[in-house]
């Protein structure tokens, strides 16, 4: 409402060029810039507040002796016997006589499904982007580009449902895996959500490579394939990398698809045909029922905080790498 008032004062300034109006206009400009800057800081502030909130709820795992009796860092990361005397193992079993909160199976599961999704999505999306920006007829491009971008608009629960009903059955019939819902099924479903993001950003990166690069390369006698592969792709590499990092971040945090298509069994194994349980799906499935303030509650927030830090570090690393590449490219040209 307030920003609306400021915006509507701007046209007045341009229409009536009297000094007084100019003065209020300058004031309006200043106000607008303050507001815009404010909203940018508001975004950062809310991000910090979210993290503080999650961190505060996760903290008792590290500080409260009461909670630590049930869940401490050692219960989260080290193996424990299911019963006294039994061999030690990594188990996630929070609703139990003796709750077990080993997050290692969840961590391995999250990483497994994310890597499968990314391995599948990135080559496909980057190749598609290269094709539409370098080789496709303009009319093909006009059809393909919005079609892939539209994929991003499909709600993830719909993709999840599709995986559960259709994709899982196809893969199960084709390969005969023991578990119908497994890391590969969920990973393929996830890649459907990742492809449009990687594609869109990579396509922008290819399109923003100066036309002169292509003309130069073609004038030197390179084929259009050589131009695309050896000139356009390297020149657009920082953008493509940024696309990959964004895609990875989307895959690791995506909830609904993995909740529906992965089977959600917290098994510690590296096999991609075993069922997996991810951080995000665990939070989604269990937070609704949990008693506020219990150890289980704080562990779930700990999972959230870990996920937050993981994506943050990943983005930071991606940013640094992109920056380095950019510098290298500029130095070379």
């Amino acid at each position: 409402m307030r920003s609306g008032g400021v915006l509507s004062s701007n046209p007045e300034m341009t229409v009536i060029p009297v000094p007084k109006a100019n003065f209020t206009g300058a004031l309006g400009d200043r106000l607008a810039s303050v507001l815009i800057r404010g909203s940018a800081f508001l975004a950062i502030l809310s991000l910090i507040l979210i993290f503080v909130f999650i961190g505060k709820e996760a903290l008792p795992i590290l500080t409260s002796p009461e909670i630590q009796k049930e869940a401490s860092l050692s219960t989260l990361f080290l193996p424990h016997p299911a019963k006294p005397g039994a061999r030690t193992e990594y188990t996630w079993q929070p609703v139990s006589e003796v709750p077990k909160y080993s997050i290692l199976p969840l961590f391995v599961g999250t990483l497994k499904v994310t890597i499968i999704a990314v391995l599948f999505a990135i080559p496909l999306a980057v190749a598609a982007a290269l094709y539409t920006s370098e080789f496709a007829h303009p009319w093909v491009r006009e059809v393909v580009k919005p079609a892939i971008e539209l994929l991003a608009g499909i709600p993830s629960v719909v993709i999840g449902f599709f995986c559960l009903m259709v994709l899982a059955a196809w893969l199960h019939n084709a390969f005969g895996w023991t578990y119908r819902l497994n890391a590969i099924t969920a990973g393929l479903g996830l890649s459907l959500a990742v492809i449009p993001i990687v594609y869109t950003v990579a396509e922008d990166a290819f399109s923003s490579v100066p036309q002169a690069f292509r003309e130069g390369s073609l004038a030197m006698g390179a084929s259009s394939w050589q131009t695309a592969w050896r000139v356009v792709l390297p020149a657009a590499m920082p953008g493509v990398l940024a696309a990959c990092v964004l895609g990875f971040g989307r895959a690791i945090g995506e909830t609904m698809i993995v909740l529906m298509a992965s089977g959600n069994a917290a098994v510690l194994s590296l096999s991609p045909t075993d069922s997996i349980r991810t951080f995000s799906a665990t939070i989604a499935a269990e937070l609704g029922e949990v008693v506020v303030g219990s150890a289980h509650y704080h562990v779930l927030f700990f999972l959230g905080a870990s996920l937050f830090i993981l994506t943050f570090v990943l983005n930071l690393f991606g940013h640094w790498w992109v920056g380095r590449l950019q510098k290298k490219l500029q130095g070379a040209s």
Partner: protein
Amino acid sequence: MKARVWAVLGGLIFALPSISGCGGGSGTGAKAVTVKGSDTMVILGQRWAETYMTEHPGTRVQVTGGGSGTGIAALINGGTDICEASRPMKDKEKEQVRSRHGKDVKEIPVALDGVAVYVNESSPIQALSEPQIKGIYTGKITNWRDVGGADQRIVAYSRENNSGTYVFFKEHVLGNEDFAREIQTLPGTAAVANAVAKDPASIGYGGIAYATGIRAIAVRRDETSEAVHPSLQTVRSGQYPLSRSLFFYTIGEPDGEVKTFIDWVLGAEGQKICEAVGYYPLIRK
């Protein structure tokens, strides 16, 4: 701009009485009853609401699912008038209601349900004993060969741990032992039923009302007793081992619209709908 602000303000002014009406349960304007809870009961609740609303056009009954735990949490937080639950409320939860609202929670059984154990239609398994089902879900039995089937690994599906069916199954069948780690959990009985329908080597459990397209097997209490199929007679008589009551919970004695609705549900018409949906009407004494 201004018009929009006024519209919003106007909307708020009109919305306020209905919000406070919901909370107090004695609203004069809009008559709305909110029902929230068990996913098992959501179909039943919606059918009740639809029929009730056609007969009482002045009242709006809103039914949502989410799981018994979610419904109970909503009742405690004052987010719903009636909580549907497929398990009895725990003492700790009743205590939370008492300390939060100063009133005891009122438990009203509204229907009977059996938890069915499903297998794929093509499976040769006709009956399992409770110890066998327990063995499968605790990971001691992993091959169908051991319970009279083909030499094939058992793929067992369960509900997520926010479901009343999960808690019922864990307490009654597993004797409160842990589920094995390999057990796959799915959000919602429909997802479990669907997964079992697609995989010949699988087993799952859930409400009997969902058992279409898959086969509910007969259950023996132990190895020597007779195998009993889930049905109206066996659930009502208590012969079927895996049966339970379904509940409504309210804060204190229900009054006003909420009471009228609950009385109607417990009456002849409401109970007839139970049967139509696939649950069992209460035993009339």
